[in-house]
């Protein structure tokens, strides 16, 4: 159920976010150009694998979190909320995979 997915992706993201933060801090020292970023990511199998997992986990984790916020802080609880969040999840997945591929494929 949603709670299980939320906690499971949380564990995955704890790792992925730590790597992501460490990487961007390390890589971005002294400014960063597109060429420098792409030099690291293009053709990099580790990048592709890690970030596809990262994107998938986020696409699951974020909408479930938003669902709690909306249900608790507004009156929107109908099925239409779940539908909207499912759409948001798909949006994140599509945009995220596109971005990852954009940076992987030379």
């Amino acid at each position, binding site marked *: 159920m949603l*709670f*299980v997915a939320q906690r499971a992706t949380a564990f995955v993201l704890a790792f992925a976010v730590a790597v992501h933060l460490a990487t961007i801090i390390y890589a971005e020292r002294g400014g960063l150009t597109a060429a420098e970023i792409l030099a690291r990511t293009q053709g990099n199998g580790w990048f592709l694998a890690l970030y596809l997992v990262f994107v998938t986990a986020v696409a699951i984790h974020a909408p479930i979190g938003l669902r*709690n916020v909306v*249900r608790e802080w507004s009156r929107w609880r109908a099925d239409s909320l779940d539908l909207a969040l499912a759409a948001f999840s798909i949006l994140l997945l599509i945009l995220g995979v596109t971005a990852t591929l954009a940076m992987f494929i030379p």
Partner: protein
Amino acid sequence: MLQVEVWRGAERGRFQTFQVARREHQTILDVVTDIQREQDPTLAYRFACRVGMCGSCAMTVNGRPRWTCRTRVAVVIGSGDRLRLEPLRNFTVVKDLAVEMTDFFDKWRTAEGVFHSERTRADDFAVVPPASPQRQAADAGIECIGCGVCYAACDVVSWDRDYLGPAALNRAWTLVNDVRDGRRAPRIRAVAASSGCQACHVHMSCTAFCPKGIAPTYAIAGLKRAMLAQALGRSG
């Protein structure tokens, strides 16, 4: 003299201010009783044992849910002189400082906070080692007297009226850990339903305010783990 603002009415109403003489070692219950007996007999409030055993006297004192019988005025306001007394948050107000407890206890039932025995009188006694981890987990929560302070403290109850709440879930956890009980699986399903244990966001106000030192947060965490174990197909 204490300036005591007291809620009068039901869901709609107003604060009425009374002046009450300050006395040494005075409790909030002393103050409320003074008002009702000496100044306004129409004030509605609850108490029973007046010694911290029954849980009847809980109300919101200066923004925090407390037992009035065990709360000294000096602890609440120090050298100040203003008290504000309101009915417990998250409960429907019956009148003035008295609230409707039905929903609160109904949720205990919804959470399967009821013991179901597997045994008959023909069976031998159940053996429950007091030092076993399960019994210790149960013991940590069985002193609950249903006062409602944790339920009043809980923001998730405010945000989601269906949320079972810390007391009901704490009770369910004590029974999950009771080896004599026979309805573990249905109970875990009951607390795993939406607005069950998964709705707890670990604010921990329940644990901070419980007058008996019970920590519903960790009971609810236990239920979350039990729910996950059951979802993943393992028993235990």
